């Protein structure tokens, strides 16, 4: 088990190198000349331009820039952004906000999704099942930004019970509404996955045996049906955690949340390669880690799965 984890962690090193290089090349190719973007419509004298290029290593070939970046990252120096602030500080400010947001979203989708999915799966074909299915269909069909704007307008502007601008104080309470909005679509998927999985397991032999043994209905559902049905759901939620962190940009922009998505969007517009690369790499690592955790959870959920050396 330990060896398995170590091996998985070691595999991340080439992924890290590859991801930084690819993203560096992309960032370099995509966003035009960052110094000209910096100057905007205004003229810039060649001498100032040359100074700035040297300051941000932009006067060197891409590969050299990447190597300099890597060399600095190993010493935990992520460099300084165009706005004069250390990149590490900016990321350290943005990540906790997005992590809070993603955690709320995951809790929302897991708790509500699984509960609704279980109810739906056990009462297949009944009125409550149909109602939940239609609800989930609606949530999937409505784009996140529509849901976000409607929530902001009704709860924030009309009723005044939730903050409109979460950005000034992105605390747990204030992030609740954005978290619900962010988790909404995944909630619908979790509901549907759980429902199908439960409905399949309900008819399985071991469930009939458990019921025949005289176990209570609750015991059968939690120990025998739910545990066995959760593998696809856990897989989905694990992968979704990474997607929520990187994909929170729409929700973040609606509620003006200074998180990873906002930072990434801004740095892509500015062509700030070191910032883009650092952010994307962190997201890649989070993705890999959450996948690892999902794989480990399989062993907990299904005793037949064991990780040997």
């Amino acid at each position, binding site marked *: 088990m330990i060896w398995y984890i170590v091996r998985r962690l070691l595999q991340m090193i080439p992924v890290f190198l590859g991801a930084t290089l690819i993203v560096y090349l992309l960032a370099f190719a*995509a*966003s*035009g*000349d*960052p110094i*000209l*973007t*910096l*100057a*905007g*419509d*205004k*003229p*810039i*004298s*060649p*001498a*100032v331009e040359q*100074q*700035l290029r040297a*300051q941000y290593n932009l006067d060197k070939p891409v590969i050299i820039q990447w190597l300099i970046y890597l060399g600095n990252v190993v010493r935990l120096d992520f460099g300084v952004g*165009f*706005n*004069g*602030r250390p990149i590490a500080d900016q990321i350290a*400010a*943005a990540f906790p906000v997005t992590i809070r947001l993603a955690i*709320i979203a995951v*809790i*929302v989708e897991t*708790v509500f999704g699984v509960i609704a999915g279980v109810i739906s799966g056990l009462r297949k074909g009944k009125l409550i099942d149909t109602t939940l299915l239609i609800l989930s269909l609606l949530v999937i069909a409505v784009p996140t930004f529509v849901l976000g*704007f409607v929530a*902001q307008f009704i709860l*924030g*502007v009309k009723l*005044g*019970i*939730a*903050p*409109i*601008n979460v*950005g*000034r*104080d992105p*605390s*747990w*309470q*204030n992030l*609740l*509404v954005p978290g619900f909005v962010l988790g909404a679509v995944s909630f619908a998927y979790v509901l549907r996955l759980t429902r199908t999985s439960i409905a399949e397991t309900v008819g399985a032999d071991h469930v009939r045996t458990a019921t025949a043994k005289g176990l209570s209905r609750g015991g059968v559902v939690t120990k025998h049906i739910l545990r066995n049905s959760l593998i696809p759901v856990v897989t989905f939620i694990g992968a979704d955690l990474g997607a929520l962190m990187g994909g929170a940009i729409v929700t973040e*922009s*609606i*509620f*003006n949340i*200074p998180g990873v998505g*906002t930072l990434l969007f*801004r740095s892509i*517009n*500015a*062509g700030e390669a070191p910032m883009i690369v650092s952010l994307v790499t962190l997201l890649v690592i989070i993705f890999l880690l959450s996948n690892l955790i999902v794989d480990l959870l399989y062993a907990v959920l299904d005793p037949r799965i064991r990780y040997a050396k």
Partner: protein
Amino acid sequence: MALSRRSMMLGTAATGVAAATLAACTGGSSGGSGGSDGGSGSGEMIFANTTEPENPLVPTNTGEVGGGRVVTSIFAGLVYYTADGKAENDLAESIESDDNQHWTIKIKSGLKFSDDSDLTAQSFVDAWNFGANAANAQLGQYFFEPIEGYADLSKEDVAADAKLPGLEVVDDTTFTVQLVSAQSDFPNRLGYSAYMPLPASAFDDIEAFGEKPVSNGPYMVDSWTHDKEIVLVPNPNYDGPRKAKNSGITFVVYDSDETMYNDLLADNVDVIDQIPTSQLQNFESDLGDRAVNDPGAVFQSFTLPGYDSNFEGEAGALRREAISRAIDRKSICDSLFFGTRTPATDFVAPVIPGGGATDIEGADVLEFDEAKAKDLWAQAEAKSPFKGPLTLAYNADGPHADWVEAVCNSLKNTLGIEANPTPFPAFGEMREQIRARKLMGTWRSGWQADYPSMYNFLGPLYGSGAADGNGSNDGDYKNPEFDQLLSDGLAAESEDEAIKIWKQAEALIMRDLPVVPLWYQNTFGGYSSLVSNVEYGWDTVPLYYEITK
């Protein structure tokens, strides 16, 4: 603040399980900072929108509006601009010259920075020398161009301690400025942020200084929480014409215009100077008297470069006029921008003294005239056929797609030619192409003035000195007659005289159309029901110091 208390109630009421778990994790991060006390202003703290400043708050390095509004609030220069774009003395006692080239500037005595250090003539000279020296890589460096010695300080290997020979301190309250050539509008420039004074302590570590500047303006920085808010409180050491009438400004950072607008509807922010595109149609009915939609200082156009063979020679001239006459500016301004743009009648935005003129010779080329446009195009075709299609390039990271589409449709329908919008993903990419003179066809161009003077809309954009990569004359328009009128205007006796001469210069570019003028962007925004005395400056930024709450 009431806001966070109420939202906490939502937290407990809305969700049983989730809220209970979350409440346990909540740290002490409750509530905004609200009004910070201190300072000499009266009334309450006002809340205003901004974007996160792109640089530390160093005046010579701040050219964009997010940092600019903070810098002009915390620093005071020799002059300041009234709402209608007139330069009036702020710290200056007098700014005088006999020949418009050698200037003697006297400042008020006994001035102090917010840390009680003395503000003297030296504070100005040091700050200008710092900004003009290319070794310091300040984005506002180009702004010192008119001062004697600028060229030497712009060399790539300039010494870090090199200074402008054109600046000389006479005594504590007097210094002289020698310009490269006569410039009657030089005093008008001096209210721009690049010309603010800096305390001696700034130069020890300019980046650290920019995080929490020691300043001399109506306000000083109380705190700056990056990406969230910048809190300014009145500076007790400032006693000039812009003295704060409120107890401070909290600039709230908005990345989302929609959030900002909703916050205004809920009175959470007091004054905003941006309206999201989606609300342009209804903001005036939503806000009533509190909506603002006035002529502004932004001029928008598209450039027809001189080096594209389609726009050269006699056929080119006909074609330029045909294109200009083929665009229905008024209907685009009304239907697409809902009256927040005003069709152009010249090349200078209307808030500028002399700008928005309707009496420029030949200005009828800006009127929509389908028959004439068709006729001119046919004449041009007869001389030399157009190598099409016509392209109009724009950067897709800005809000341009809609109007570019509309202009292209207007050209298509009127002239019966193929006209294609050509998006570039990022602004920097388009600039790169333009600078290398590789971008053929036409591209969107615009200008927001740095200081309220007609010259600033003409010289940097169409003067020969700014062509060939030496400035913002990207279409490489060159006309000695035009250059002569520009410098005649600069040497004029009075501003009225200068305006008269520059209007003649405008007539020349109206004939040659190096760019096709489209419209002026209005100042639009709104304010909350809690504040009064809201007025917007010539540069579309509210005059925060006047607002009362």
